[in-house]
């Protein structure tokens, strides 16, 4: 019996069997922190297509990036042989792996011999699996002996991590599973646009609103997410902390706060109350541009709800006051008694696929596996024992991501740099300077799947396996550790990062060995994390498969994992959450006569991060072919710009020319440029590298810009 209907969602049309060795494989999307479940299905020709999977994160949904992810596996631009340059400025030529690895090892050890171990830097990526992040951290500390390793997750979630850590004693993106969102009576999203950046997440917000829940969105743009909100607070870029404190002022004034919760489960409220007392709505309106009436209404929506969540995104976080902004939102959640309770809490909607795991296991300059502190003698000893090295041989804290890149400037401390899975020439602030610095290094080696803008500057490029070509684990935004599975072997000539790290470590005479296989690597990571804050020791590949992922901390094989944190107490020594008295301060740069508009940056649905992958997927490239500037039609009119005209944007860092896209949904004083493109289209040529003093997060979200019509 043949049904006259297409196959149900998620299963490809029946066809002749795939080539031997290929079978459908359940894995996860290669992109964002939601890590949607998907099945990679091979056809007779060995080409894969994507089918959605009913995993607890995406429940059968996928966005355009996920559906088209398999195109990465057959991209004609794939690197399949190491590339080397015989001299600076010379052309690339293909080389054998032995030649390339020998060259890398000798150049890195040469730099170390001439300038000291810290002259060799390592820059990792938030897309690396836990196993690779772990190996890379170990490689830097043991094989290279350098303190200077950091990763692009610093550009993503470091402000939230610092604020969450200091308030709760533990930093996990969300302290609850995303499914809990549907059960919150009120949710405030500050500076995140999940309807575009992680669309399948929206089903939980839809469910939340369908149950009568309220959604408040803070964004200078009426984004796709803001359009769904009960209330949209269209705040001035850089004013998030003042807005949060203004909401707290109203909550205190109108007696919406939870005095019992504050007394029993927190410390430090009085200092915060004193600051909130000085944020009356008129004043906050003038700072934020959010009308007083809306401030009052939003405070009541949150305060009068029985359960509420406050979620921050890159908007408030990617600022030179990013940590304080997040603290201000945490203060609000705590004062309302909306934390450490079911369907309540502050969390961050993180961006990168494994930004969470990447920082837990040793890619961050100040951390060792298991979220241990590299400066803490006990923590150093625990990890050194697993690695079989003398604790004294481990370097101390190194430079944070942006400082590490700054140190590549002529005369800087870093002379040779190894970059894995990161396209910093597109993704770092003040990108023009970054590019010049990298080009001038003594030695640059980049490992990537494509010749990214950054790889193009390298002396050696190592072609590496990609997501569906190797096994490993990722930790998604909920703290759920999941399995990424190999569907197909890498193309001939391509090696995995783990194999490259092991081969380089051997050439560098490393005192500790490096696991090449994913599961042995994970088992070592488990041991190294045992007893740490991010304890993975009870998690195994088998458990992840059997349980649809396991939430950390999970300190023993019989431990169920921890989907919901803090219900019994916060992870501070006294079990109480801490308020932090923070006060709004001006952004690193504010508009003036010469640069009269705010510039903010962000993402679009059809592209991901620096675009290294998504710009090479034809359907996505066709959907969003290049950068543009979004501006209000009234603003454009004054500048003589019409839809599609080329606009020249200038900041104190540089100039780009991009097409104008006009929409009345953005503030009159604000321009928006998505940052997925390189070269003359790079938003980060414009952005300001002012750093948060605590997280060292650059100020991607706020700077001052001038706009002119580009002569045709």
């Amino acid at each position, binding site marked *: 019996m043949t049904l*006259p209907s297409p196959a149900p969602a998620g299963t490809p049309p029946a066809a002749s069997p795939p080539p031997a060795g290929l079978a459908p494989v359940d894995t996860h999307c290669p992109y964002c922190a939601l890590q949607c479940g998907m099945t990679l299905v091979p056809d007779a020709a060995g080409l894969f297509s994507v089918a*959605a999977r009913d995993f607890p994160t995406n429940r059968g949904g996928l966005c*355009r990036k996920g559906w088209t992810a398999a195109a990465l596996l057959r991209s004609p631009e794939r690197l399949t042989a190491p590339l080397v340059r015989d001299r600076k400025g010379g052309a690339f030529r293909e080389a054998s792996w032995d030649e390339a690895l020998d060259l890398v090892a000798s150049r890195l050890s040469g730099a170390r011999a001439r300038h000291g171990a810290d002259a060799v830097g390592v820059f990792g990526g938030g897309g690396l699996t836990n196993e690779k992040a772990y190996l890379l951290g170990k490689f830097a500390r043991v094989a290279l002996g350098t303190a200077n390793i950091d990763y692009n997750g610093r550009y993503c979630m470091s402000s939230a991590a610092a604020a969450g850590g200091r308030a709760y004693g533990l930093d996990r993106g969300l302290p609850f599973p995303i499914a809990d969102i549907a059960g919150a009576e009120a949710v405030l999203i500050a500076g995140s646009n999940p309807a575009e950046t992680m669309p399948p997440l929206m089903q939980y917000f*839809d469910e939340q609103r369908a149950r009568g829940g309220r959604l408040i969105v803070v964004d200078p743009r009426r984004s796709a997410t803001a359009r769904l909100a009960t209330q949209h607070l269209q705040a001035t870029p850089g004013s998030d902390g003042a807005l949060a404190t203004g909401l707290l002022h109203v909550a205190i004034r109108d007696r919406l706060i939870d005095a019992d919760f504050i007394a029993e489960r927190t410390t430090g409220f009085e200092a915060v109350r004193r600051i909130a007392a000085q944020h*009356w709505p008129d004043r906050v309106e003038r700072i934020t*541009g959010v*009308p007083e009436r809306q401030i009052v209404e939003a405070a009541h929506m949150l305060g009068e709800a029985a359960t509420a969540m406050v979620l921050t995104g890159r908007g408030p976080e990617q600022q030179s006051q990013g940590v304080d902004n997040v603290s201000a939102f945490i203060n609000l959640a705590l004062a309302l008694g909306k934390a450490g309770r079911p369907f309540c809490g502050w969390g961050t909607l993180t961006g990168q696929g494994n930004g969470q795991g990447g920082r837990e296991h040793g890619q961050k300059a100040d951390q060792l596996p298991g979220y241990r502190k590299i400066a803490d003698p006990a923590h150093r000893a625990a990890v050194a024992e697993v690695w079989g090295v003398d604790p004294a041989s481990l370097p101390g804290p190194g430079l944070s991501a942006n400082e590490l890149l700054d140190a590549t400037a002529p005369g800087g401390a870093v002379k040779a740099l190894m970059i894995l899975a990161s396209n910093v020439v597109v993704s770092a602030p003040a990108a023009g300077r970054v590019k010049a610095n990298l080009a001038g290094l003594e030695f640059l080696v980049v490992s990537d799947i494509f010749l990214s803008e950054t790889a193009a500057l390298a002396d050696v490029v190592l072609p590496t396996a990609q997501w569906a070509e190797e096994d490993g684990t990722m930790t998604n935004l909920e703290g759920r550790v999941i399995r990424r599975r190999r569907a197909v072997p890498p193309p001939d000539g391509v090696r995995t990062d783990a194999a490259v790290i092991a081969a380089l470590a051997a050439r560098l005479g490393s005192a500790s060995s490096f696991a090449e296989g994913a599961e042995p690597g994970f088992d070592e990571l488990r041991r190294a994390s045992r007893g740490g804050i991010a304890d993975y020791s009870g998690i195994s590949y088998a458990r992840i498969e059997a349980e649809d992922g396991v939430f950390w901390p999970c300190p023993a094989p019989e431990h169920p994992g921890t989907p919901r944190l803090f219900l019994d107490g916060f992870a501070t020594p006294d079990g109480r959450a801490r308020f932090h008295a923070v006060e709004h301060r001006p952004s690193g740069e504010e508009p003036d006569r010469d640069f*009269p508009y705010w510039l903010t940056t962000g993402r679009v649905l059809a592209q991901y991060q620096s675009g290294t992958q998504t710009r090479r997927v034809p359907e996505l490239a066709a959907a969003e072919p290049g950068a543009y500037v979004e501006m209000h039609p009234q603003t454009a009119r004054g500048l003589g710009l019409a839809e599609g005209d080329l606009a020249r944007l200038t900041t104190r860092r540089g100039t780009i020319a991009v097409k104008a896209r006009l929409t*009345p949904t953005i503030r*009159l004083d604000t321009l928006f440029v998505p940052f997925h493109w390189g070269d003359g289209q790079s938003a980060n040529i414009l952005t300001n590298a002012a750093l948060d003093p605590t997280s060292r997060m650059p100020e991607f979200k706020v700077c001052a810009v001038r706009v002119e019509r580009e002569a045709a």
Partner: protein
Amino acid sequence: MTKRKLVVVGNGMAGARAVENVLARGGGELFDIVMFGDEPYGNYNRIMLSGILEGSKTLDDILINTPAWYAETGVTLHSGDRVVEIDRAAKAVRSRRGVVENYDVLLIATGSKAFVPPFAGAFTADGALKTGVFAYRTLDDCTGIADYAKGARKAVTIGGGLLGLEAARALGGLGCESHVVHLAGHLLELQLDATGGGMLRRTIEGFGLHVHTGKATTAVLGEDRVAGLAFKDGTTIDCDLVVVAAGVRPNSEIGLRAGLTVERAIVVNDHMQSIDDRSVYAVGECAQHRGKVYGLVAPLWDQAKVFAEHVTGRDAQAAYHGSKLATKLKVMGVELASMGITEPYDEHDEVIQFAEPKRGTYKKLIVRDGRLVGGILMGEISKAAYLMQAFDRDSPLPEERLALLFDLGAPPVAVTLEEMPAEMQVCNCNGVTKGAIGACVAAGNRDLGSVMAATRASMGCGSCKSQVAALTDYFVEQVSEAVPDRAVVAEDASRLDGHVQARILDDGTFSMMPDTEDGHCTPAQLLRIAEVAVKYKVPSVKLMGHDRIDLVGLPKDDLARIWNELYLTAAE
């Protein structure tokens, strides 16, 4: 390193804020800090005093720095004590109670006091205000007025400025017949032009407040207690409570006695230092900077910040350049915003104006070189948030001046499915257009589930699902309508409610979906459907999304019989 000593005269909004800013900049390590406060409380938020007067707030509600704060931060506070002398040669201050404190750095933040013009009969012989006459400045003033108002019938507020109107409103709320007498020709003359002031007057009179403009008070009548007021025009008004809100005067005598340059207030440079003595600073309403004395909170706090940056050495170049004045207030439910100038300076200033007196709406903007230099918004002030920022930041204004006064958001245009252009994206997550859904239906997909599976529409965030469903139905209908000759009508509808409903398929056969009431049917009905399907040799039974069962591949001739059999059963 031994600490230096910072003595702060004044514990109000400027002085306490300055100390907070000093502490936030590590000043606790640099200085021992001593403060004197005239009032016997911690520092409270003066702009919320009307709440005390109305009785809606208590001291606790408006306190910023509680007494405990001073102890915790190590700041010595002499509260309820006033500095009466500064000895600059000895670098010491002496209080009324005889406390002497030496200083290395002195900050004068004595603020201002209510100005009570010398009306005849306003004061008693010992210089106190006559019983029933109050200033409106301090917490004690407010509690005093509120107490006295309990026994009062008719209250007059002298002064129709910000504070006067606030007091008059509160007195009305306390049950008094409330009058305002104002010297100038219109209310709020610093914030409004004559048109705005006139409109405000009419509006608040509508709420029962009595307003007398252009009236100069000359005397307070009554022997032991107030009984009325007399005016220059010879008229009088009887009343039993008078609140004087006729402006403030800087408390700068102490600077004068110490030999500092005092004009309208203590003259300071851009670092907020006295121009005579580098170790003496002044901030707030007692300070005069570039000829100006500020009375609003925002400038005070800007000054306090500059002081803290400078005195702690955080930024030795920290400089105050003056502040732009803007304010918002609510008078008897009328919302007002005012910024900068109220009248154009010359003919080059562009004035944009809108008035709708009936509704009490008035908007006036003054634009110079494409920048906002003045504005009044009354009644409907939804644009205030944007305009105040544009004024503060000197930002370029949009050319469309109308957009400055109103939100011009075009009303959402309802587009019917038919009007929707084919290239319009319906599903943003997966980039599916209306046209793609049409093509998908034309290719044989006839229900939402199969359209979703084939196009991925609504398989991302899912928010477009209802629209995808509507479009699917729309195209399915179109496909059916496109072949009217093959549409099927009941041949025997006599016992049926309505017509036989079936759809034609690409191969010329038909499909029929028995009604199962959202997926619910009795076992007997389900059995009946199966029996009918077997009896008529239905080639395929498809379980659909939307809780339906579809009998697929029916020949046209059997349709009516199948329909009857299904629905006769259902009716039984």
